[in-house]
């Protein structure tokens, strides 16, 4: 069964360092998302991506964050200068369709646990 994969599973970094989190969405999906979940808190939307551009981003997704689809399979989230409060689980998701009159079933990867020291 197709699934979303993410690497690495766990990333430890020093404050101020850049990190790149990688995702391989399900192959025929067109819409890609990043969410994060701080320990003990709810899953929060960061950004959505379609047709090689950002569709929507949340207030969390400031200038320190960027996303890219460098080739036909990978979808990356870059944090330029990590802060302590960036420590969280980061989930990539993908869907075949968008919403409107069609339901938007998003399938999640296993997540990357980012620890900023």
């Amino acid at each position, binding site marked *: 069964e197709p699934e979303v994969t993410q690497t690495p599973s766990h990333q430890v970094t020093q404050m101020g360092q850049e990190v790149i989190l990688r995702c391989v969405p399900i192959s025929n999906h067109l819409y890609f*998302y990043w969410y994060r979940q701080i320990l003990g*808190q709810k899953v*929060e939307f960061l950004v959505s991506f379609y047709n090689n551009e950002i569709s929507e981003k949340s207030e969390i997704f400031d200038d320190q964050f960027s996303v890219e689809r460098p080739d036909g399979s990978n979808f990356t989230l870059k944090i330029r200068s990590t802060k302590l409060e960036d420590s969280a689980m980061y*989930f990539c998701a993908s869907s075949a369709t968008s919403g*409107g009159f069609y339901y938007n079933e*998003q399938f999640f990867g296993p*997540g990357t646990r980012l620890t900023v020291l």
Partner: protein
Amino acid sequence: TQLLEQSPQFLSIQEGENLTVYCNSSSVFSSLQWYRQEPGEGPVLLVTVVTGGEVKKLKRLTFQFGDARKDSSLHITAAQPGDTGLYLCAGVTIQGAQKLVFGQGTRLTINP
């Protein structure tokens, strides 16, 4: 800002009992999804409800979408220890990029 309030946040019951988890909002969603999340893993989609009043069954789990598409419930009949886990509801926004708005989750424990 669209919010989904999920209740209860914690529920511990005995095997064989029935339970209901609620997901409420003042906002309308185009659809609502229920996920189950195991520790250290990503949410796994259980079901999507789309039409107001829709009811979907998944074995002993019954999901309902409110008539106004603002609320949903998950009912488990004769709960089993294997049902133990974190259940999340997530609404799909109508406007914009149809992002998911998550509730805070219900941590369910079924005791043998």
